[in-house]
């Protein structure tokens, strides 16, 4: 946990930090097992998180993460350090996870339909929740959001976390990848653009769609249940 916090702090700095990578790489190439353990400790948790967002089970995720590490070892000599080590490892993991996720048939027809809609844009909030042109104030809320009940306690609850993770898994793949890296792993925008080969604007659009969907899932989960009366 502490290490993840440190990694988050690091991600706020602009650009990758080449020096720690270089020293670690040097030791890895010499076959230093302690260096490999460091790598596993530092990057293992984020790889599992990233991969689990793409495949249906933990056991498959572990397989994919295992394959990723083997590919990392085999590619070490060819890694030129143009991106950070973390970005490079993430790209390998994502390629493998995408392939495996598709093969496992995780994408259902319904999700596919929705994806076509969402990947191209689509509103952050259901348009029906705003007043129409004949309303008193067109474009202003007709059904405004309600305050969440005990958000501090609820947002940390396991049940709520599961709801958030489910919402992320239901997103179209690119939105899922962006929000996982930005908000679950705490990477900065530049690093995500680099790992996913996105423009800054595109990254932000995908993040916006994804965050809006997760908020909306939380709304269903946390809003006072007597919805009809409160609107």
């Amino acid at each position, binding site marked *: 946990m502490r290490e993840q916090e440190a990694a988050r702090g690091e991600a706020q700095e602009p650009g990758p930090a080449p020096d720690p990578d270089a020293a670690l790489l040097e030791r890895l190439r010499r*076959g230093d*097992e302690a260096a490999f353990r460091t790598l596993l400790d530092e990057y293992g948790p984020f790889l599992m998180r990233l991969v689990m967002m793409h495949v249906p089970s933990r056991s498959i995720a572990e397989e994919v993460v295992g394959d990723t590490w083997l590919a990392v070892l085999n590619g070490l000599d060819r890694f030129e350090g143009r991106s950070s080590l973390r970005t490079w490892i993430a790209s390998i993991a994502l390629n493998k996870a995408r392939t495996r996720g598709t093969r496992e048939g995780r994408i259902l027809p319904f999700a596919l339909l929705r994806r076509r809609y969402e990947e191209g844009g689509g*509103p952050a909030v259901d348009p029906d929740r705003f007043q129409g042109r004949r309303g008193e104030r067109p474009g202003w809320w007709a059904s405004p959001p309600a305050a969440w009940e005990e958000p501090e306690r609820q*947002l*940390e609850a396991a049940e709520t976390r599961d709801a958030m993770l489910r919402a992320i898994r239901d997103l179209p793949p690119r939105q899922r990848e962006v929000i996982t890296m930005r908000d679950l792993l705490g990477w900065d*925008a530049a690093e995500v653009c680099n790992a996913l080969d996105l423009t800054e604007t595109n990254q932000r659009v995908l993040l*916006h769609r994804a965050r809006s969907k*997760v*908020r909306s899932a939380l709304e269903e989960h946390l809003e006072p249940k007597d919805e009809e009366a409160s609107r």
Partner: protein
Amino acid sequence: MNRRANQMLTCREMVELVTDYLEGRLDDSGRERFEAHVAECAACTLYIEQMRMTIAALGHIPPETISPEAERELLDAFRDWRPTR
């Protein structure tokens, strides 16, 4: 749309600008218009607060870990990999 440029943003427009705002990507006039709406609209203030809470909550989800068995296998794989070098 026959809306003047300095007219108040609608809530429907606001919810599409939240990420640009939070990421610091609105220009000065965009930010001023965004904040002018917030000052007047409790519902959008709540909406933005919920977006912030969502982001914070996502950041608090604990990391995943691999099982000790999987880690052992990886260390074995590393030892196998080393001698070939």
